[in-house]
């Protein structure tokens, strides 16, 4: 039986690949979970697009201050050593390749690392892009956190994105609920997959061609409530 990871387990898995001293931006929504699973011995500096370095955990109920929110507009706290700066400086930091890692959600990722995560192209949708395009081109490493398939079972890891792109060739690693897949110059390579799913089954759930059959390891995460 396929033992797919919960979202919190995917967040845990991503957190293991964030190294001591990294400057990290966590996209709005699911990627924010990653902050909860950084190993205790690693000091990480979290960036938020609205002009913060050194964000700490969620505030307690009496500490909430709506002048101190993250890009997702949720209240946060500051660690000692944090700093504030204006929006042009914040995106200079992003575009100028100073962030080590950003973790983003995705509608689709292509075999070339193209990312589509801002628009499904619907004629009625109000277009909204935010900082995703800047993060996609700016961060040294772009990690994608996503379910492997849509609720309807469609592939999200595709040959070619059908949705409008956020950025071409920007993704480095895809962390799904069943696999960790690196985007390499010669294509997608499965680094890890969950037990109970064969490589062929994984390929069947992935529209893009995947490699790494021989070398891929087991993807596992601790039980997280």
């Amino acid at each position: 039986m396929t033992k797919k990871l919960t979202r919190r387990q995917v967040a845990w898995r991503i957190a293991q690949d964030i190294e001591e001293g990294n400057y990290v931006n966590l996209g709005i929504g699911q990627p924010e979970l990653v902050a909860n699973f950084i190993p205790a011995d690693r000091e990480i500096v979290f960036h938020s697009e609205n002009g913060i370095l050194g964000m700490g955990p969620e505030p307690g109920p009496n500490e909430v201050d709506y002048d101190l929110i993250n890009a997702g507009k949720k209240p946060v706290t500051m660690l000692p050593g944090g700093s504030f700066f204006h929006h042009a400086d914040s995106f200079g930091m992003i575009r100028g390749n100073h962030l080590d890692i950003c973790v983003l959600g995705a509608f689709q990722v292509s075999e070339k690392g193209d990312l589509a995560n801002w628009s499904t192209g619907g004629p009625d949708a109000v277009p909204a892009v935010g900082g995703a395009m800047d993060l996609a081109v700016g961060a040294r490493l772009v990690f994608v956190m996503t379910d492997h398939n849509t609720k309807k079972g469609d592939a999200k890891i595709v040959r070619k994105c059908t949705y409008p792109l956020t950025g071409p060739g920007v993704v480095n690693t895809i962390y799904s609920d069943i696999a960790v897949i690196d985007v390499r110059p010669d294509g997608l390579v499965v680094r890890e997959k969950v037990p109970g799913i064969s490589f062929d089954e994984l390929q069947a759930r992935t529209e893009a061609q995947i490699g790494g059959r021989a070398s891929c390891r087991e993807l596992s995460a601790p039980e997280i409530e």
Partner: protein
Amino acid sequence: MINKIVDTLQDAVSTIEDGAIVLISGFGESGNPTELTHALIDHGARELTLVNNNAGNGHVGLAALLESGNVRKMVCSFPRSTDSGVFDNLYREGKIELEVVPQGTLAERIRAAGAGIGGFYTKTSIGTPLADGKERRTYNCEEYVLEEPLHADFALVKADLADRWGNLTYRLAARNFGPIMCSAARTTIVQARQIVPLGDIPPETVVTPGIYVDYIVEVTNPASEREMIENGVHYVSGAAE
């Protein structure tokens, strides 16, 4: 004696004319000049173009200004939110024009306007529909798109401390778009939580030098848009009902 302090919100916004391009500071609900925005609704200038990261929430502040019918065009990076129905409806009914700009490009275009830059190249949006039709240039083997400065007639900005020269500081992450918007507008109008004597802000900690500021009005206890929305406030010109 230089004195940029004005007594009332009404005085502060009184020169905003029909057709003006107006930058409005803030991100989420940090740094929003809600009182100045409401004063602009009362003032009644029409056919405005507004620039903000978002497109308002509930029926207060920026959303109330949209709802007043006085806005022709919205320039922003992310108009959607959980409570952006006012904008959504105007947009779907074709009653407002929308220019979506990636957030960093929006910030840099505003900064460029303030800093006398006649355009800049960014990698952001290359390969996406938002780069369609724009000039490109290859630098260091990578493709960049040309973006133009975003000049404005007015900026409405919320600050923390201010002095009579117009020097400003900001609280926490409420700084966001304030400093660059102050620099990019022909006339910059600021609501500050507290006006302090000249010299009280140490020169190393001034965030916006007074040269960028034209009018300051003190708003000691600025409203929380969140609380107003939770209380069902609909701001309508002249009266909160």
